[in-house]
């Protein structure tokens, strides 16, 4: 249909006319058509030329311009350097301030120095180290190890400031030495909600300025080491097994993760390593946003409601607020009545000796009836964590796990389950509504489960310290994950020269590398919150660059497919154009030859 004018033109120009053999009286010999006029030849040549001019002057540039593969330059060398860990050796200098209001300045300095020595001697993992800093009188801010503090020393007198977790965010911990002459030995005290470690000591243990060892400094050093032992292990685990971690993300090519299996760590205690490994597999992958879904399931018709909103506000919101430095959280709740177990799960068995109903251990994995319970796998972006409060039927109360009689457990990378055994007043009054007070214990369990799902350490007990640890470990793992994404992208770019690298990818890479550099320097400077913020952006940008849509479209596009794309449309247009051009050229040559022969 594209060759309309062309073929029509053929029809009449070169068209030779067969005279209608008028009633057979004329001779059978076909008439010779009169020769074409030169004007017609010229006209036809011009028509063919006009089509070719469009093809060559417009078509070819359009073809070249629209099918060229945009490959903006990527800093491949840099990206590979980050992936190999050459670009940045992450360091975690933890600043710990020491307050010794009872001591002389010189004494305090000496004690600090001794403690630092003791710490340095014990530390085997250089990337993670503790730096002590004496904060005493108004003019005696001493920085050991040359670490520079930009804190305003005038505020240091105010002791309450150090209890306030928001102010001294760069300080991992504050150690306050207090003399208590009634004591015979040194005692340490760390509260659950603060970053203040109080060390109570009988005054005579303070080392004199000349002595080179001291039991007090040794005690402080050991205490600090103990507090950060687990975190150190976690960070070391992350750094040494970085390739396994990034191997979890789907885009890492399997060969890359295989050849760099985690080297067995010499430094971490094997027992701790095993514990960490199991915890890491339990915790969910990092996401900038987590959706928490709290569900009330019961096989009966009651309780049909729960005071979850106010209970969450009271019991969970403070934790979520504190965790908001690491991720954002959304909270959903739902109630599902008449929720039955999956058929594969054995019904609860009655344990005569303890007077409880029990669930078999092997049934716990199937306890959550994924097929029938409406637990959405994910809501929008980010991962969903499910927390299930299960209220058993009154005839099956109390319901516990068989082996350890526990009533709650954690489902790795998925959420937690807690069974709420209502005190049954002889089956008379099963309240329709679960009050705030009744669901408080399970909510507290959920908050612990949430922390372990997020990968927070078990020790120390203090929540602010756990959060800090979480901040540091998350920053480390995001740094490594973004770096390895950069490496994958660089390898992909080299391996597939035919894929497009649009401008957006190169800006995303640019931004990733930028934020990775900021993360690294912030880590080295000890600004961990800042480091985490940069690492989050770096990770997001790296993912955006890697999963750029227009890039993956042409990954598997062999040249054979191009024929299939071009031919169906361009064939019908191209063949008449080409044939006519050839015919014209041949005729022109023939005409010239004939002319020469005549001449």
């Amino acid at each position, binding site marked *: 249909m594209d060759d309309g004018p062309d073929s029509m033109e053929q029809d*009449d120009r070169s068209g030779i006319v067969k005279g209608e053999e008028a009633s057979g009286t004329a001779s059978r010999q076909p008439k010779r058509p009169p020769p074409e006029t030169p004007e017609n030849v010229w006209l036809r040549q011009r028509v063919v030329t006009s089509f070719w001019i469009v093809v060559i002057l417009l078509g070819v540039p359009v073809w070249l311009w629209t*099918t060229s593969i945009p490959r903006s330059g990527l800093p491949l060398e840099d990206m590979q350097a980050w992936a190999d860990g050459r670009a940045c050796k992450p360091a975690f200098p933890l600043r710990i301030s020491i307050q010794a209001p009872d001591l002389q300045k010189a004494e305090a300095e000496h004690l600090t120095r001794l403690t630092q020595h003791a710490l340095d001697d014990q530390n085997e993992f250089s990337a993670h180290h503790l730096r002590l800093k004496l904060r005493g009188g108004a003019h005696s801010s001493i920085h050991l190890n040359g670490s520079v503090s930009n804190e305003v020393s005038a505020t240091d007198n105010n002791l309450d400031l150090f209890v306030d977790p928001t102010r001294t965010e760069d300080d991992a911990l504050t150690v306050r030495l207090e003399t208590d002459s009634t004591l015979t030995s040194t005692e340490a005290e760390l509260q659950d909600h603060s970053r203040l470690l109080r060390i109570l000591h009988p005054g005579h243990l303070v080392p004199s300025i000349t002595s080179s060892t001291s039991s007090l400094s040794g005690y402080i050093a050991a205490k600090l080491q103990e507090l950060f032992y687990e975190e150190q292990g976690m960070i070391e685990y992350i750094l040494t097994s970085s390739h396994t971690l990034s191997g979890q993300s789907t885009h890492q090519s399997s060969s890359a993760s295989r050849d760099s299996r985690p080297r067995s760590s010499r430094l971490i205690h094997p027992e701790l390593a095993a514990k960490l490994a199991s915890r890491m597999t339990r915790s969910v992958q990092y996401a900038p946003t987590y959706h928490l879904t709290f569900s009330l399931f019961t096989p009966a018709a009651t309780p049909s409601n729960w005071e979850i909103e106010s209970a969450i506000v009271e019991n969970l919101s403070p934790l979520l607020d504190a965790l908001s430095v690491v991720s954002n959280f959304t909270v959903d709740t739902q109630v599902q009545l008449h929720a039955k177990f999956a058929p594969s799960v054995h019904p609860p068995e009655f344990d005569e000796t303890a007077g409880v109903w029990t669930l078999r251990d092997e049934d716990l994995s199937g306890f959550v009836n994924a097929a029938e319970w409406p637990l959405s796998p994910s809501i929008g972006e980010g991962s969903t964590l499910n927390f299930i409060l299960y209220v058993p039927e009154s005839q099956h109360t109390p319901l516990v796990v068989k082996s350890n009689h526990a009533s709650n457990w954690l489902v790795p990378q998925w959420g937690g389950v807690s069974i709420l055994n209502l005190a049954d007043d002889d089956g008379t009054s099963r309240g329709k509504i679960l009050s705030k007070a009744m669901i408080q214990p399970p909510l507290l369990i959920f908050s612990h489960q949430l922390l372990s799902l997020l990968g927070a350490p078990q020790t120390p007990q203090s929540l602010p310290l756990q959060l800090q640890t979480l901040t540091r470990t998350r920053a480390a793992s995001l740094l490594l994950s973004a770096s390895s994404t950069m490496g994958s992208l660089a390898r992909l770019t080299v391996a597939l020269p035919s894929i*497009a690298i649009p401008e957006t990818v190169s800006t995303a890479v640019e931004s990733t590398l930028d934020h990775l550099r900021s993360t690294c320097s912030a880590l080295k400077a000890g600004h961990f919150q800042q480091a985490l913020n940069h690492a989050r952006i770096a990770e997001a940008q790296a993912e955006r660059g890697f999963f750029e849509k227009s890039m993956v479209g042409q990954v598997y596009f062999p040249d054979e497919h191009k024929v299939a794309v071009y031919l169906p449309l361009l064939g019908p247009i191209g063949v008449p154009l080409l044939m006519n051009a050839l015919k014209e050229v041949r005729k022109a040559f023939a005409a010239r030859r004939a002319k020469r022969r005549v001449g």
Partner: protein
Amino acid sequence: MAPDRGPPSSSHSNNTKNTYLVYAAAALLRLFLFGAFPGAGALLEGRVEVGSCVCGFKARTGKAKTTSTPQAPLLLALFSLIPTPHFHLITALLYITLDLLAAHALVRIAESHQAERTRLFKSPRTGEGWDSWIIPAAYLFNPFIIATCIGRPTSVFTSLAILWSVAHAVGDKPMSAMVGLGVATYLSMYPALLVGPMVLLGYDRQEEEKARIGASGKRGDEAEAAEGNEKEASSSIWLFAAKHTAVFTAGLAWLLYISYILTGGSWEFISSTYGVQLLVPDLTPNVGLWWYFFIEMFDSFREFFLGVFWLHLGGYVGGLCIRLRKQPLFVVVTMMGIFAIFKPYPTIGDTGLWLSMLPLYRHVFGLMRYTFFAVSALLYACLLGPAFYHLWVYAGSGNANFFYAITLVWSLGLVLILADSLFAVLRDEWEVERPEMRGKEIRQI
């Protein structure tokens, strides 16, 4: 039949009377349709065949306040002036007027007899054409045009602008023709491809008029004088083309500037009006060939095939202008047909316009070979198209291929008519050269 030097006065007045009768009947028919079926407009405007996404009624009114509408700002301004309570009545009257104006432009084109004899060519079948009142009747009572009028898409404005531009060109007013073409281009962009043929048409008419005046002064034979004049005038065709292209550009620029002022000093309307035409982001089904192709196309080849499709649309201009240099009006008509088939968002209004211009060439209808087949294909598509669309979109018992297959049949029918009319005109031209072959079969060897 009308002799060469204009029809006698009695036939002329008869003609005029018939023309006005046609106008009145068409207006009454439309008024009746608007009045009797007030819901018909709403029904038709939603049909993909009548109002495509770029010129449909909804695109005009529903989204009038947003900047993302693919309508030219001046049209939006015009429609925003219509008071809402009488919107239906006023737009009905407006569209009836538009149709009558378009028909009148067709009458003027027909009365110029440019289809039968031009400056460089005189058809051996001169005088076999229809009387000039039949042409507007063919337009006004064309079911496609009536449906379009009821459906009220904005493409009617473009059609009118093109027709008026042609009418001015054949009426020896090339400047106004170029301004009219500028308006059409401003509204829909694709009429810009008509600049070449319109310049040729305007030039030929101007030369013809000059020759006629000169000849009447000398009392010589018209044809001889025209031939004599040809040589000395031919040198100025490039100047003529440059001047008129400049007029066209200036008119277009002026309209764009007004729109720029009207939209509060923002050029955003350019990308939302012409960007939609040029880049075809909206793949809502229509009677054209683009939407299905671009739904199926790999994303990375999208730009390339956009280029191919547009070049395909534009590539015909040069060849047609050269081949049909003697009949520039027929180049315009053929281009209208190519637009109706190959432009990105065609509607049956475009087809109706082209099919209503074809009767100007009534004298070559006898040379067309596939009329029956083409008309059957069109009828087939007209009947099955809406049915298949219903099966696909509403009943869900068909898929996109059903409708696309029908649009292919529709386009096939139109291409047949297009190629056949072109063949007929060329054969007619050829018989000037070989008068002895008239009425005989020809065969390509």
